[in-house]
């Protein structure tokens, strides 16, 4: 799956962008900046996905990850974080923690790179013949694809393949994932309720209501729903 030509160029562009954005995410002082940099990192990675031929996943990433999760992040940042940095507060932890973390991260990166090196060499030795024939295979596959409406490109079968797998062989994990999402929704709703909301649905113990009502007079007036 060697990329070549313009694909290589775009690869390097997006790769550098992703890494850079990631670095800035971690280093930015403002949380909103961090979020925006993360969004850009995610976008760069989505582009890398397209380069790898996984268009569907790229779309999913942008729609769900960026469009959903990051927006949620921004909402929460707006809720809790505004003014935090202005009020003062260090960005980084205590120096000792930071230095030790840096040391470990350095070791980790060295280890990972070494691992990739060794592993890739082994992989190459194992799949030499397959890699050699892969090129020819890919070329052939490319010719078989349908052309798009504008006849400039071909419609790839990636989405079709992912859909096939997801709904046939991986249907059970799919259903479980949907249940997981349901649980997550319910959980987050429950976690983020205010006391008033909880009292309104009579979800508080009476002594807690009484204790809170002493502090918050409005609470006592809230009638229960039933």
């Amino acid at each position: 799956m060697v990329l070549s030509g313009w694909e290589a160029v775009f690869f390097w562009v997006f790769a550098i962008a992703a890494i850079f954005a990631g670095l800035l995410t971690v280093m930015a002082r403002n949380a909103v900046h961090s979020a925006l940099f993360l969004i850009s990192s995610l976008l760069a990675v989505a582009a890398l996905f397209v380069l790898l031929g996984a268009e569907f996943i790229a779309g999913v990433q942008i729609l769900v990850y960026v469009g959903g999760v990051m927006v949620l992040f921004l909402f929460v940042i707006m809720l809790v974080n505004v003014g935090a940095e202005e009020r003062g507060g260090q960005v980084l932890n205590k120096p000792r923690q930071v230095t030790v973390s840096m040391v470990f991260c350095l070791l980790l990166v060295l280890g990972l790179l070494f691992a990739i090196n060794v592993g890739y060499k082994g992989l190459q030795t194992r799949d030499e013949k397959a890699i050699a024939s892969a090129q020819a295979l890919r070329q052939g596959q490319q010719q078989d694809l349908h052309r798009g409406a504008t006849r400039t490109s071909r419609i790839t079968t990636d989405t079709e393949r992912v859909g096939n797998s997801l709904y046939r062989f991986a249907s059970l994990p799919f259903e479980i994932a949907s249940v997981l999402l349901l649980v997550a929704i319910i959980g987050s709703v429950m976690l983020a309720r205010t006391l008033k909301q909880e009292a309104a649905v009579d979800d508080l113990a009476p002594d807690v209501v009484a204790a809170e009502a002493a502090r918050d007079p409005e609470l006592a007036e809230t009638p229960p729903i039933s």
Partner: protein
Amino acid sequence: MSTFFAPALVLLFQEATAGRADVMLHSVKNPDLSKFLVIGALLFVIGVAGVLTRRNIIVIFMSIELILNAANLNFIAFSRYLQDTGNVNAVAGQVFTVFVIVVAAAEAAIGLGIVIALYRNKETIWIDEIDLLKW
């Protein structure tokens, strides 16, 4: 000292790169699976560094998203590689990525719900101020 080490280092570099410059240039011009993996590893480590270093809870969460993203990249790269080498289960990587995204979304939702509840109780987003488990 330098007179002792410098020639050694030069020779090392020579040894290491002798005949390898072409290979390196070729691999840069035609990036392979390994490059993707390296990118993924770097993103991963950056995310880890962020988790360990920052004080802001939200930023920690975002670093965790970075980590997950790096893993996704790894999956997709391997999925493509396996496709090319003729493995029938190649699309499993992409399917797994879908699930990773799902779980990441769910986890982000819950986590941020916790952050909000935590903020309501303690009025702070600095993680080193949330240390009730301290002895």
